[in-house]
C-alpha cells in the first residue's frame, strides 16, 4: 500500500464541517494493529484541525505541530473501534491555526487537546496542494477506505544513563526510512512530533514504574502532558538525545520533564504528569 494517506493519516471521513470553525470526523482503528497509542489519537485530532485550516486558506499553507498547552489522556483507544474526532477552531489564518479538540469512542473521551497552535508553512514544501484538495473533498464526501493504517514501528532507543525511578538519558535513532515518511510528509520527510512524544512518554512510564511508592495495584499511566513545544523539525536518520527527569510522587501525581536535543540544541520540550 502506498504510504501517502495511509502510513500516518488518521482521518477517514469528515462528517460535520463548518468552515474555519468546527469539524467532526472519524477514524476506524484497524483491528489488526497491536495498539493505537494516545499520542496517535492526539495526532488524529490534530490532523482534523489541519484539514479545516488548510481548507480555510485554500491549501496555501499547512500547519505543523508546534504548541500544545494541555493534552489530557483519559483512557486507551482499542484497535477495531472507531474514533469520533471533534475540533473547534479558535483562530485560523495564513500565519497559524489555534484549536482545541477531542477524540472519543462510543461517547467515552479518549483524549482532550486544549489550546494547540500550529504555525502555517507553505504547503508546496510538504505536499501537492491539488492532491490535498482532492483528498479533502473525498473525506468530506464518501470518506476514505478504512483500515489503511498498518501500525507504526517505534524507533530504536538506546539508554545512555539511568538513575532508577529518577532520570534517564537515551538516544532515539530516527530511522532513515520508514513508511510514515512517505505520508508525513511526501515532499519533506519529518519525524512526527507525536511519535517523539509517544517515545518519551513510554520511557517516562518505565521510570515511574521503578519509583516507589505507588499504592498497591496502581499502574502508572499518563494523565496529561502540558507545555508541549516543538522547536524544530527532526529529520530521517538523526539521533535525538532524550532526557527525562521524574520528580518524586506528590498527591498521587509524578511529574516528568521531557527534553529532546539534537547536537546540544533543544528541539522539543514537554511536561508530563503520571497518575497511578
Amino acid at each position, binding site marked *: 500500500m502506498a504510504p501517502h494517506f495511509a502510513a500516518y493519516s488518521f482521518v477517514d471521513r469528515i462528517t460535520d464541517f463548518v468552515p474555519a470553525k468546527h469539524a467532526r470526523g472519524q477514524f476506524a482503528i484497524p483491528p489488526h494493529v497491536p495498539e493505537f497509542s494516545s499520542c496517535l489519537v492526539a495526532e488524529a485530532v490534530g490532523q482534523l484541525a489541519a484539514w479545516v485550516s488548510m481548507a480555510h486558506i485554500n491549501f496555501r499553507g499547512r500547519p505543523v505541530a*508546534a504548541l500544545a*498547552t494541555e493534552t489530557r489522556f483519559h483512557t486507551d483507544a482499542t484497535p477495531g473501534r472507531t474514533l469520533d474526532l471533534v475540533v473547534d477552531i479558535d483562530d485560523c*489564518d495564513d*500565519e497559524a491555526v*489555534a484549536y482545541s479538540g477531542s477524540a472519543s469512542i462510543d461517547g467515552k473521551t479518549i483524549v482532550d487537546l486544549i489550546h494547540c*497552535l500550529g504555525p502555517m508553512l507553505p504547503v508546496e514544501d510538504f505536499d501537492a496542494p491539488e492532491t490535498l484538495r482532492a483528498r479533502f473533498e473525498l473525506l468530506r464526501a464518501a470518506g476514505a477506505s478504512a483500515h489503511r493504517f498498518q501500525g507504526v514501528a517505534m524507533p530504536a532507543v538506546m539508554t545512555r544513563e539511568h538513575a532508577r525511578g529518577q532520570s534517564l538519558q537515551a538516544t532515539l535513532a530516527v530511522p532513515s526510512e520508514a513508511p510514515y515518511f512517505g505520508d508525513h510528509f511526501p515532499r519533506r520527510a519529518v519525524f512526527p512530533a507525536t511519535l517523539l512524544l509517544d517515545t518519551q512518554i513510554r520511557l517516562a512510564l518505565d521510570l515511574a514504574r521503578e519509583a516507589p511508592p505507588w499504592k498497591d495495584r496502581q499502574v502508572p499511566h499518563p494523565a496529561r502532558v502540558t507545555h508541549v*513545544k*516543538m522547536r524544530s523539525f527532526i529529520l530521517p536518520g538523526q539521533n535525538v538525545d532524550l532526557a527525562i527527569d521524574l520528580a518524586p510522587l506528590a498527591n498521587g501525581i509524578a511529574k516528568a520533564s521531557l527534553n529532546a536535543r539534537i547536537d546540544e540544541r533543544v528541539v522539543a*520540550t514537554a511536561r508530563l504528569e503520571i497518575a497511578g
Partner: protein
Amino acid sequence: MANDVINKDEIMAVYPKVAETMADALGCDVEDIKLDVSLIDGLDAESIDFLDMVFRLERAFKIKIPRGKIVENARGDLPEAEFEQKGIVTEKGLAQLKSYLSEIPDSRFKTPMKVADIPRLFTPETFCKLVVRAQREAKAPA
C-alpha cells in the same frame, strides 16, 4: 494608530500577568522576566517562544495580537520600501523603530540594523505595550 504614547502606569498594570505568562512560556522563574531584559540574548527565546508568548498573552488578557506581525506593527504607516531595503532598516525606518520601541535604549539599536535582528531588541516591556495596545483597540469603538 496604535502607536500612541503608553505611560508607565499602563505598563506596570499589565506587567505582573505578562511576566507570569512569559515565565510559563519560557520555562524560567518569573523573577527572571525583568522589564528590560532582551528576550533573545537574555532569556534564550526563539521564534517559537514568541509565538507561544503571544498565544498565551491572548488567552490571559482575552485580547487579539496579530501573530507574526510584531515587526510589521513596528513599521507603522511607513511603506515597507521606506522602512527597509535589502533586509537593512533605512534611516527613516530606524527612526520609526526607535519611536515604536521607545522602551529600548538607543545603544541597543545597531547601525546598520538587519530586519532579521529586530526581534533581538524585544523585551518584556515590548510585550506589555503590545498588550496595552490590544486592550485599547478592543475598547475602541468599531
